[in-house]
């Protein structure tokens, strides 16, 4: 599995080794799209195990060991709540919980595949790939900005929470006593600081030509490789196995 892509990496001179071993962002996007279409569609339940296997393999390929273990475990727990719990405890309330768990299970299955895309794709790679797939610029630019900005909001939120704790306005006690005030004290600074970051980010990006009328190029134009072929083969095998079962 490793020797072929490495050889490919050596042939494409000037590229850092390891880049060729990873999936093309287009392949990753198609995997997410395909697995959500199949799993979320009516009658998609039989495909859930296949999607989870795919998620685990992708996690292993990027070295995310924790996810590779947690994804099947979480899914198994949710699946137990969905299918075993109603058999053990036949109450109406449990039926409601089980229906919700069955719904959640589909999200977990697709989530594993989607996390791989989010964790291994940089905004520029994604735009380059989407562009190569002839997606209009309005969509590629906003997708890139969103991918860039989500982690920023998370960072800002953590910082605001820290500041609230030190000011003595955070914590569960305050939250229960003054829920609205607590939410206000969290969201106002969060929005203010996120906006300031967003302003700098968009000013810098616009000056550096993001969204300009020129057709952008890529330092390393995306190319489909052996890894992508392997991924397609794997998915075909998983689908066939599910159907034949």
């Amino acid at each position, binding site marked *: 599995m490793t020797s072929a892509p490495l050889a490919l990496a050596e042939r494409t001179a*000037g590229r850092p080794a390891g880049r060729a071993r990873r999936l093309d962002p287009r392949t990753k996007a198609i995997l997410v799209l395909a697995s959500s279409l199949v799993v979320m569609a009516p009658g998609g339940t039989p495909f859930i195990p296949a999607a989870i296997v795919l998620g685990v393999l992708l996690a292993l390929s990027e070295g995310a060991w924790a996810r590779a273990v947690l994804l099947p475990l979480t899914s198994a727990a949710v699946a137990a709540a969905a299918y075993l719990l109603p058999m053990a405890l036949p109450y109406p309330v449990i039926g409601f919980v089980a229906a919700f768990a069955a719904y959640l299970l589909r999200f977990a299955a697709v989530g594993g595949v989607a996390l791989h895309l989010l964790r291994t794709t940089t905004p520029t790679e994604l735009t380059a790939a989407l562009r190569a797939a002839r997606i209009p610029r309005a969509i590629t630019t906003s997708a890139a900005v969103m991918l860039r900005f989500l982690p920023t909001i998370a960072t800002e939120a953590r910082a605001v929470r820290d500041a609230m*704790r030190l000011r003595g306005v955070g914590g569960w006690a305050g939250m229960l006593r003054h829920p609205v005030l607590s939410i206000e004290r969290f969201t106002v600074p969060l929005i203010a600081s996120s906006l300031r970051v967003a302003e700098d980010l968009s000013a810098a990006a616009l000056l550096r030509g993001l969204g*300009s009328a*020129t057709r952008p190029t890529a*330092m390393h*134009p995306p190319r489909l490789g052996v890894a992508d072929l392997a991924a397609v083969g794997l998915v075909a095998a998983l689908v066939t196995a599910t159907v034949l079962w």
Partner: protein
Amino acid sequence: MIHIEGVRWTYAGATTPSLDDLTLDVQRGETVVLCGPSGSGKSSALRLMNGLVPHFHEGRLDGSVHLDGRAVADLSLDQLGRLTGTVLQHPRRQFFTGRSETELAFAMENFGEPPEQIRERVAAGIDEHGLTGFAGRRLQDLSGGQQQQVACAAAATHRPPVLLFDEPTSNLSAAAIERFTATLARLRADRATVVIAEHRLHFLRGLADRVVVLRDGAVHRQWSGEQFSTLDDDALRAEGLRSSVPPPRPKPLRAQGLGPSIDHDTTSMTASGTGVTLHAVSCAFHGRRVLDIETAYLAAGVVTAITGPNGAGKSTLARILTGLQRHQGEILLDGRRFTRSQRQRAGSIVMQDVQRQLFTDTVEAELRLGASRDAGQEQRLQALLRDLDLDPVRDRHPLSLSGGQQQRLVVAAARLSGRRIVVFDEPSSGVDRRHLHSITRVMRDLAGEGAVVILITHDSELLTHTADQELRLRPISP
């Protein structure tokens, strides 16, 4: 190269203009420094040069601006971006990609340059700007100084004729400032036109062709590079400017400390008296150890500066001291166990990004939130409002204030918090001479009342004036 004539600019929603009859010419290949007190229009002048005013920021513009002979008003932002490279005050906010290589390529990719040429220029940029050592690491994991280097390289890779810097040294250590100075010297040698807005002036001696003092949005006075280097400190003080000579090597006492993270040998450990004691405190992120202190003692009643290069674990230590960061080891206050949640209740931080800690709807309410209620607090509050120039804005919404005013507001709130541990994380970035002194006074007062005052700073001027003790950290070698 840059020709500004009779410009008056008012931001949408503001009542007074930020630039008022500004006229300024910058020649091709010239290096010009813009200085002046907070709110004098330095940042707005830079935005005028790269076209963010009026193409990005909204407001009312009169007068004319020409860049390379063309009217800025008639150019689009990406056309302006080909002519200018801009480095903002917080480089980490302007990064669009995750790594140095892609960040350097970003502008050229968007401008549609051929891939071959992009790879060539990016490789050259990484080499010239000294990024080789950390080119593979994630940008968010780099130290402030390294991020600054990447931002400079990214602004220059597409070879724009004009480069603009907004307070480039506000968060840099002395060593990082030296590297930045070398970058400037190289850009100058390449005949780039460079404009820098700065408060700290000492590193610009011998590099500036011209120093322009702005006041109330117009040119107040100008010096040539030679004239500037002969000015004495009194002349600068008269203009409210920071010193142009490097401050004398500060010599605060060494704080007691021992361990891989501590950069000085402490003689014997005689930790006694009140204050915070650390035992075997260490902290790691993703398996990488960032802080390891065998033992250290931070005395109450004095200002202890935590110094060291970017990436030595200064902010991590501050977060541990205020209970925000999980860690290994034990911390004592006045000899008794001091748990993480106790530290959260006893600690206060003035963060680097102060917008994150403004919670209420007026300046006065902000000062009363979470403040202790001892006798004399009311008087103290009124005195602080005057001292820190916040009296005229006491009823305004904190988020409507300027960056400098917000910073002073958070400093004032920390003063009134009545906490035992108060941390100031780079409180002087973007602060002019007068306010530097009032912030120093706040720290001294807190120490005078018996608090453990921690100052994290690279600003040697602030260090000289404020710190009694210094705990110098160093990055842990892997």
